[in-house]
């Protein structure tokens, strides 16, 4: 199967920045696109939930939160092998959390092949962003006398921008239902994929900027950034299978597990674990794992899914 054209936009951005072109997108555009993506994903999930939601979803949500927590601990254990506590904790938080754009690309991958996924995956996306950040901070502070500012942390986690937009979109989509959302679909549905293409152009530019930092971080970080998503995807696949999700839902959950945060986690860790080196986690998450998932990971996880669900 040929590459999804949205991935070509990512490569264009990557090329432009590596070749030191003066191409730059205005920061306001980046922020606008991410507000749009979050709302659109949320709305879509909400409409679908209104149609097919079942109480069983709540149990699944709890399982997924548990999954995010376990992945963070696992990542931390691996990272402690080579990194100090703060760096390992902050990086683990990135990998326990998720990347919205990677999720969107996987969803577009499914859509191209006409494969459906359960609507609650959007909910999983929303709830998997947060537990990792809490666990990361706990891991960094474990055994320290310094008291944690729990209130602030909880606030950041539950009321972070992406959480509010995703859950807000979900609720609006759920309340308004397919009929109510109809008149909004020229923007939130029809333009979803082309807007994603613009977003990926920007992601290419940003990824390239982090590739430079990779050299300074050494090969452990690169290996970690390549192997951990593979392992996490398998865990995600297994969990999806055990939870009884469809193949499409399994691919999305595997992608969520394999993906790593590059917005919410860096911002939260910079404040909560200042002694961690932000360049290190971001080089791994944005410089290695993000492009890997986009270019190779998603098709690979799909092959694994098909094999498992055959």
């Amino acid at each position, binding site marked *: 199967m040929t590459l999804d054209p949205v991935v070509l936009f990512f490569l264009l951005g990557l090329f432009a920045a590596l070749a030191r072109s003066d191409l730059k997108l205005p*920061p306001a555009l*980046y*922020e606008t696109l991410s507000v749009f993506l979050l709302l659109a994903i949320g709305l879509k999930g909400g409409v679908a939930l209104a149609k097919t939601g079942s109480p069983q979803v709540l149990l699944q949500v709890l399982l997924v939160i548990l999954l995010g927590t376990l992945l963070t601990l696992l990542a931390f254990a691996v990272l402690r092998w080579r990194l100090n506590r703060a760096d390992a904790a902050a990086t683990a938080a990135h990998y326990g959390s998720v990347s919205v754009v990677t999720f969107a690309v996987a969803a577009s991958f499914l859509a191209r092949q006409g494969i459906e996924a359960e609507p609650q995956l959007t909910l999983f996306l929303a709830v998997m962003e947060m537990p990792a950040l809490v666990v990361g901070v706990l891991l960094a502070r474990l055994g320290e006398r310094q008291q944690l500012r729990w209130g602030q942390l909880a606030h950041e986690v539950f009321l972070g921008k992406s959480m509010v937009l995703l859950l807000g979109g979900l609720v609006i989509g759920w309340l308004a239902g397919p009929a109510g959302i109809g008149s909004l679909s020229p923007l939130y549905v029809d333009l979803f994929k082309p807007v994603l293409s613009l977003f990926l152009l920007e992601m290419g530019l*940003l990824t390239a*900027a982090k590739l430079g930092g990779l050299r300074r971080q050494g090969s452990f970080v690169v290996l970690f950034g390549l192997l951990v998503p593979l392992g996490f995807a398998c865990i995600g696949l297994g969990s999806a299978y055990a939870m009884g999700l469809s193949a499409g839902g399994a691919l999305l959950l595997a992608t969520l597990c394999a993906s790593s945060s590059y917005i919410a986690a860096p911002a939260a860790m910079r404040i909560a674990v200042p002694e961690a080196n932000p360049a290190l986690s971001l080089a791994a998450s944005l410089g290695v794992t993000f492009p890997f998932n986009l270019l190779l990971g998603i098709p690979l996880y799909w092959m694994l899914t098909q094999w498992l669900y055959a």
Partner: protein
Amino acid sequence: MTFHAKKLLTIVTEAVLEAPLVKVLQQLGAHGYTVSDARGGGSHGVQGGGWSFEGNIRVDVVCDAAVAEAIAAHCQQAYLPHYGLILYVSDVGVLRADKF
């Protein structure tokens, strides 16, 4: 027209610190502050400002020498070890001494 002698304290640091820093300034006795977006480079590398959380901010505070010292001391202890930050003080003359 007489200008009253005050200190102008300027801090350039990472954008993520805006909220905590502004809170601290008021606690340490500053009566006001001005923030603007910036980018730059230093010992922590280049801060390009391409992303909202990657840029720098520049914070200016006009205040008494004692307040300036208190703010500088707090920055040195709380932020300098872990964040990209510079801080400098200069002499300025202001219109209404009571405002600052």
